[in-house]
């Protein structure tokens, strides 16, 4: 039997992931209704480990934003946010989430039977990814009359210096003091170290999972990664995330050893730069599947693959991690990172997603695709779209663009 005719073998860990997600959201809901527990909202690369060490149940509104995108609800939610003054062309995660709070229906109710996003007692952000998270969290801070506290790392760095790290470490120390003061809590340093260690271990395992895509054929794709990355974001600092990624890594290694391809008959290996287009994730994955193109690596899924914690000051690790991430670096550093990724994963062509409401996580606006194309002589495509807002996406034009991209890989006009 040829590889082409082989049927796709589903990832077994998906069942486990589903149960894990259910447990996570049910626990969050329980915490929100328990007077003895506290829920903190956190940004996806925010100071989560401190919150975990202080005993907060952590919730990540960006995940909710993505969920609203997957469910294609943004078109009815964004106008609600725009109606109270949030520009409709600002972050569609933020606008969808605010719109949902203003009277929309959260899919969390349908999926997990909970009342919706858990009511926060604290909002904790880091502007290492964008300033919008600050405005987003400030909205909910006012709405729930709870503190919205954050750190503001230096941005767009080429080199991360000890001074940068010290600055952010100070911000984190201040952040801890603010929480301790407000909630009359005391951070146990040992608990913080444990949370950081668990966070690092989960992140390292996640990186190893993603690295299995270096095998040919790849046992997983970006589309799988966009789903299976949930625990490394939502459950950072927990044992559950470590257990999950140990199992997922074992499965991916088995698949690689058995040549089980995520895209049977894999012909092309593609890199995805930028945010997923959540409302069209399935259609896009199927299009690539039909074209036998495996999107084997992405910047997005690697955003939570941090450098390991090797002991020492946990706050310093958190500070360094929060400023070393891709989104917080300058163009030259990003280009270097991307070229290395293309080499490591044997990439044939690159797709940049110009997410119209997410300039911070879009890298096609200052000539990078053109520079990489000229430098590497590799096909590079920029597609317009958005993480949630389908007003910026045309299915027909995008699909034609993708087909033409593959035709270009095949040699263009034959």
């Amino acid at each position, binding site marked *: 039997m040829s590889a082409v005719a082989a049927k*796709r073998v589903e990832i077994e860990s998906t069942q486990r992931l589903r149960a894990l997600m259910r447990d996570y959201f049910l626990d969050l809901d329980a915490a929100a209704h328990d007077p003895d527990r506290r829920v903190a909202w956190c940004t996806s690369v925010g100071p989560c480990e401190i919150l975990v060490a202080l005993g907060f149940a952590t919730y990540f509104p960006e995940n909710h934003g993505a*969920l609203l995108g997957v469910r294609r609800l943004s078109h009815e939610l964004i106008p609600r946010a725009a109606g109270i003054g949030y520009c409709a062309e600002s972050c569609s995660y933020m606008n969808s989430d605010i719109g949902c709070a203003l009277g929309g229906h959260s899919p969390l109710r349908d999926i997990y039977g909970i009342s919706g996003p858990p009511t926060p007692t604290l909002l904790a952000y880091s502007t290492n990814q964008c300033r919008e998270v600050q405005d987003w969290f400030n909205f909910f801070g006012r709405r729930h009359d709870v503190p919205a506290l954050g750190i503001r790392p230096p941005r767009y760095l080429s080199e991360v210096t000890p001074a940068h790290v010290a600055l952010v470490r100070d911000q984190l120390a201040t952040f801890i003091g603010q929480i301790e003061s407000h909630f009359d809590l005391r951070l146990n340093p040992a608990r913080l170290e444990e949370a950081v260690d668990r966070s690092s271990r989960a992140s390292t395992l996640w990186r190893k999972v993603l690295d299995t895509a270096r095998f040919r054929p790849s046992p997983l794709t970006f*589309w799988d990664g966009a789903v299976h990355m949930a625990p490394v974001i939502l459950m950072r600092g927990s044992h559950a995330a470590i257990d999950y990624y140990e199992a997922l890594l074992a499965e991916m290694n088995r698949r690689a050893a058995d040549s089980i391809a995520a895209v049977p*008959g894999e012909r092309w290996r593609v890199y995805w730069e930028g945010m997923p287009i959540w409302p069209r994730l399935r259609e896009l994955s199927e299009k690539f599947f039909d074209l036998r193109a495996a999107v084997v690596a992405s910047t997005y899924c690697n955003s939570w693959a941090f450098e390991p914690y090797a002991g020492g000051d946990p706050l310093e690790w958190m500070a360094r991690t929060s400023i070393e991430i891709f989104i917080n670096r300058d163009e030259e550093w990003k280009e270097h990172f991307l070229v290395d990724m293309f080499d490591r994963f044997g990439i044939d062509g690159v797709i940049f997603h110009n997410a119209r409401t997410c300039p911070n996580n879009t890298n096609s606006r200052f000539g990078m695709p053109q520079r990489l194309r000229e430098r590497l002589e590799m096909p590079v495509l920029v597609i317009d779209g958005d993480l949630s807002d389908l007003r910026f996406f045309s299915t027909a034009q995008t699909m034609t663009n993708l087909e033409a991209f593959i*035709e270009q890989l095949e040699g263009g*006009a034959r």
Partner: protein
Amino acid sequence: MSDRLYIGIDTGSSATKCVVVDAAGRRLAHATVPSGFDYAQAADAALSGALQALGAPRDRIERCVATGYGRERVSLATRRITEITCHARGAFEWYPQARTIVDIGGQDTKVIRLNAHGRTADYRMNAKCAAGTGTFLESIAVRLALPLSEIDSLAMRSTGRLVMNSYCTVFTSTEVLERIKEGQPKEDIAMGLFRAIASRVVEMMAARDGAVAATGGVVTHCRAMVKALAEVLKTQILLPPLPQHAGAFGAALLAITPEPHETAPPEGGVACSLEVLKPC
């Protein structure tokens, strides 16, 4: 000597074009019909028109390649190839010296860069918005209650340098009214519309080297479009004998070469595990 025919059908958003070639790639016949509501029917009508012009029966057809917006609906096609590849192929056949192809269609504008072998080196296509396409001109023509041909004639008589500040269909319609109110000559206003489209094309050009060829319906019907492109790009524009049929011609030429290997689509179909986000 084979008398087999190779068919290219380009089902565009406005018109469906068919070109018939022989095994040597010689263009034997062509036809154009409105795409209308039924792309399959339009494709069939275009094919019938071309075969009728040639006086050839359908059983001489060897292979057919479909391209264009409605390519999936052409049941006769043995292959479907994007209009980007097909326009590049067609234009290159006419002008091997062309390194940039500008295709302005009803709904899409594409800029395709070719290498010396006629292969696609790079391409850009307009985003979701149809600004700077044929639809842009048609909408403004309706607003002005003038046929497109009249707008083209007016523009060709322009001697001014009027530039529109936008290529957005809605904003430009408003700007046209402003220009009328200012008393600007209608000839200059008309030419300003074509310059707006040409400016959009420039935005889509990462780089330009070598000769530029223009294809698509807009340059077929509007001489002013070619004039505006030449003016804005500061170069002579190569205009093929049948610019609107470049995609269909390219498709027909691509039909001559059989697919290296026809393989069954993979089974399964669900390429990722999104069910985790569905209700349990």
